[in-house]
């Protein structure tokens, strides 16, 4: 065995890596692509929700609150829908349980705060968050279905754009 072969092999690895592009994602400027089933923030869509509260029963932390009232036609009016993101462990069991896919994973993950109570999202906040999501994602739900272009207010009133 000739002297220095191991050294040459090691330096070859170094040389190969010298020409490689950097692997760093410079986060605020370039974001890493998120896999479609990654468990990020939850997005709740008032127009898909029937108020069955299956999500609240599936939640292991008990951080979802649903309060409904029956309408004349037998359907439910969702009076309150609140998610406590201080408690939420982002397991996605609510999204799996929801029969109408009204709550879906795929939201933003940069919602850092200075006051932890800002992480308690009530219905107007969740609706604004969902509207914001749809506007940014060309009116396509996180599960890939197309959404109707409309602005939905927290009280359920719809306004077509």
């Amino acid at each position, binding site marked *: 065995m000739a002297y220095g072969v191991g050294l040459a092999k090691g330096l070859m690895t170094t040389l190969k890596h010298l020409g490689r592009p950097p692997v*760093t994602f410079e986060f605020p400027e370039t974001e890493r692509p998120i896999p479609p089933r990654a468990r990020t923030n939850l997005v709740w869509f008032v127009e898909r929700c029937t108020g069955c509260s299956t999500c609240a029963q599936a939640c292991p*932390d008990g951080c979802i609150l649903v309060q409904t009232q029956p309408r004349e036609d037998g359907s439910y009016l969702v009076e309150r829908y609140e998610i406590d993101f201080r*408690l939420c462990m*982002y397991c996605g069991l609510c999204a799996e349980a929801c029969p109408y896919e009204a709550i879906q994973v795929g939201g933003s993950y*940069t919602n*850092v705060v200075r*006051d*932890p109570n800002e*992480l308690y999202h009530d219905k107007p906040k969740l609706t604004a968050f969902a509207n914001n999501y749809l506007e940014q994602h060309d009116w396509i739900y996180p599960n890939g279905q197309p959404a109707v272009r409309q602005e939905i207010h927290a009280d359920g009133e719809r306004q077509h754009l």
Partner: protein
Amino acid sequence: MADTQIIPVPLLNVEPPAGTPGPGSALLGTDIEADLRQQLLLTKVDSVLTWARRSSLWPAMFGLACCAIEMIATANARYDIARFGAEVFRASPRQADLMIVAGTVTWKMAPAVRRIYLQMADPKWVISMGSCSNIGGPFAHGYSTLPGVNNVVPVDVYVPGCPPRPESLLSGLMLLQDVMKEEGVSGARGRPEPDGDFSTMLPEGDPIRRELESLFPPYLSLNGEPRDPKTGALPHDTNYQSLSGAL
């Protein structure tokens, strides 16, 4: 130089101002920033110092649970926390500016977390990372977990997630840098201080409660004995007593 009126006052021999709680606060709980605010006028120096501080935040290297894995991932080349000047994870809290509470804070660990915070040199900042340290997370109603790390240390920035993605932690770091820029060197801190009252969470006579309360002002001993006002020594601490005799 005739019109500048900066009066240097020796910082070490400052008498504690009236209203400072407890004996020994001149030694133990001295807020150097408060002294600076009273004694010096800082304008341009303030912005330069703030820039230097927020561009070289050195975190203390400790992790409590799975969030620490994401913290390590943030330090790796893919996300590279070094781009924000916070890559120097110090193994000693004496050299650290930033405490990233990454993980579940159990009652058993809470005095250690408080002690690490007290050992860090002023100025110091705290990021609470993950649902567990924010409010207890999935263990919030359990018997063994602290309901939020803000009960033992003042928290500047809360990062939600379980665990948070590295991007979330970087967002928290950037928010903290904005907070530091906004508050400046001489400005007041906007974060709430913990009150050190654990009577609603732990029973009377609990050893962990006794240890935790000894780590809050006025820093009484585990038996409730006051410290020496000159040296901060406890009554049974014979080494410090002989030292104070020598002084």
